[in-house]
């Protein structure tokens, strides 16, 4: 229950920050990367590749920079 409440609070409070970060080319790594258990971890959208952890391995892919 507490976790749900925290997620709900984050969803509301953090939404404007996510929107600004998204406009700058970033997105939350949560859902894209198994290593990213936290919603407040953001990665560059262009770095996301299926099967590769962009959180644990930020190696430039040629597209990311």
């Amino acid at each position: 229950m507490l976790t749900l409440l925290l997620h709900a609070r984050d969803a509301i409070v953090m939404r404007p920050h996510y929107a600004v970060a998204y406009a700058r080319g970033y997105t939350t790594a949560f859902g894209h990367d198994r290593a990213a258990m936290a919603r407040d971890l953001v990665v560059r959208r262009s770095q996301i590749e299926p099967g590769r952890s962009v959180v644990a391995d930020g190696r430039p892919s040629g597209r990311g920079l």
Partner: protein
Amino acid sequence: MSRTADPLAEGCDGRQYSSWNVPLRISVIVCAHNEARYLPACLHSVLAQSRQPDELLVINNASTDDTAAVAAHIPFVRLIDEPRKGLVVARETGRRHATGDILVYLDADCRAPLTWIARIERRFQHDADLIALSGPYRYYDWDWSGRALIRAYDFTVAPATQLLVKHILRIGTIFYGGNFAVRREALDEIGGFDTSIEFHGEDTNVGRRLSAIGRVGLFHDCYLHTSARRYIAMGKREVFRLYIRNFVSELLHHRPKDTAHMDIRI
């Protein structure tokens, strides 16, 4: 709020630091030795911040890989070469080159939560007596048992230790070297970092010296995501032993126990 109108509030010991709602210039400093693989995600996590830093410095510390090239390709980064190898030497180089009021240090394998700098800035703006702060780590590449162990440590062992060493014995503070922020004037006042220290215990050293001249805080909301690569490479038990003996040695003898360290970059 009586501090609102006073841009330079006087601290409890007579020092004057920037205070309530006064804009602070924030310099973020990342020291990197052969961190080409981890560095981009770290720098992008800083650039994505809700409160962006006024300056982002990468100290290329005697790297033999593509660290410098990787950092140079990322916009807004100010790259500084430090050919003398050593974490503390690199941090000191960062201090000398940074122009901000608040110097924020994080390691190259760290990833900053989206509002990390905003939280740090708020802490300094709302507390004129605060000269430095640190926050705990959360590990993004560790197994569940490691993560659970560290969270349990954060809420049990760390507060008890902090109570003992900071509030009862008054001999220092818990200070995490990969996640701390400090007022430039305070760091200048203690003479910067002790570059005679190679690696382990350097955070306890700077925390102890800072806590002797002002208030140093440990705040859970200033946490940082980081890699558990040292724990994975050396084992939990060995790393805990290493940290504890250097923490105790630095507090009691003002010198860390271990002078050598294992390079765990993989």
